């Protein structure tokens, strides 16, 4: 799994951080999403997919 973020789209709703805190974080200065791990281990994949599905700005893209 490879993850790419579109930080221009991100609206800092923060749900990805709640769902997959080992993969996503928020920048201190503006709350915009930060990727902690761009190729997370398999046990994180469901949470990452869930974060992408829920992201209101469609800012998280996953390549299988």
């Amino acid at each position, binding site marked *: 799994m490879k993850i790419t973020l579109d930080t221009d789209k991100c*609206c*800092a*709703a*923060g749900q990805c951080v*709640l769902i997959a805190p080992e993969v996503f974080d*928020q920048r201190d200065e503006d*709350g*915009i999403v930060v990727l902690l791990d761009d190729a997370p281990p398999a046990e994180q994949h469901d949470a990452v997919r869930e974060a992408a599905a829920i992201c209101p700005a469609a800012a998280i893209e996953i390549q299988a």
Partner: protein
Amino acid sequence: MTVSAAPAPLPVQPPNGCPFEPPTAFAALRTTEPISKVSLPDGSWAWLATRYGDIRAILGDPRFSSDTTVHGYPLSGMTGGAPNANRGFIRRDPPEHTRLRRMVTREFMVKRVEALRPGIQRLTDELCDAMERAEGHEQGGVDLVEALALPVPSLVISLLLGVPYDDHDVFQRLTGTLLSRTIPDDEREAARVELRDYLDRLVTAKEAAPGDDILGRLIVEQQRTGEITHDDVTAFAALLLIAGHETTANMIGLSALTLMRDPETAERLRQEPGLIRGAVEELLRYHSIIRNGPRRVATADVEIDGHLIRAGEGVVVAVASANRDERVFAEPDRLDVRRPNAQHHVAFGYGVHQCLGQALARVELQVVIATLLRRFPTMRPTVPVEEIPFRTDMTIYGCHALPVTW
């Protein structure tokens, strides 16, 4: 579609005797006419979207504008102020929306809000202590809205913004008027002006002595550098103050009442405190307290589910219907605190306007509901549910008052 029959009015009332149900018409519309036409109070019409998928598509599509000054925006029957007033970022589109919203996004980010959790717990405990000490709660009951549901979010947002909580009578009265659907427009306009004047004076005082709070930081970092004006700071103050307490307060009241009427679920949450996070998502889905929108206006011709919505046509998006869509949520009318996809609800909206304060709302709801369940396991309403004053007259659903005893 036939155009001979006048469209039915926008459904806003829950069915009689079912205070937790969304307006009756939604379920039928989802099946028969998911994109329908509705009439608004001034006689104009707008599209009404009732299915989850369509609603996410509309709210996520930049061709639907949030700008209330765009011709065709369905303002009729909406509350909260005139279109040409300084309207804050929720009523603007990118890139201006993005620029303004990002000035405050860090204030509501997950880790900053999590850091507030101990303080929110302390505040909740103190208010619960005060409820326990209240004289005569066995007889007349304590109003849970006044004693707990409103003070928690109101105190927290006042503190974060730097608005003196001593003034809460003033801003609670004014926001209540602004969010009413039954108060005449001229009275609502007067309340809007009064709130603006109050916040205008407050921002002026803060310009001389900005404190360590959201408004203080906006003044120092954005206003003094010329990014925004005094009026913009006032608009931020109004938006965050209104959004910060009416919404969460009503979710607390409705959630408490739901759990009092569902002792099995309440007991499960007491036994398994780890369920509270999912339970709050499910309560948000189930109640969907925004009953009058959100709304948008198309800025281009857009096809949604086979319907052509033309540029300049208004759209009302029924999030309360989306959250009961059987295509997404199994047995949608059942409250299930273990529901696996509850967090897919659109109670906070969807798209770039999705609620900025959602992390704060979640923490407040988790803390207050868990604390109530733990400390008042025998709490119950003192009046039959039919006598509880539900907010069918307001944009944000809930209870005006909730008399309880324990």
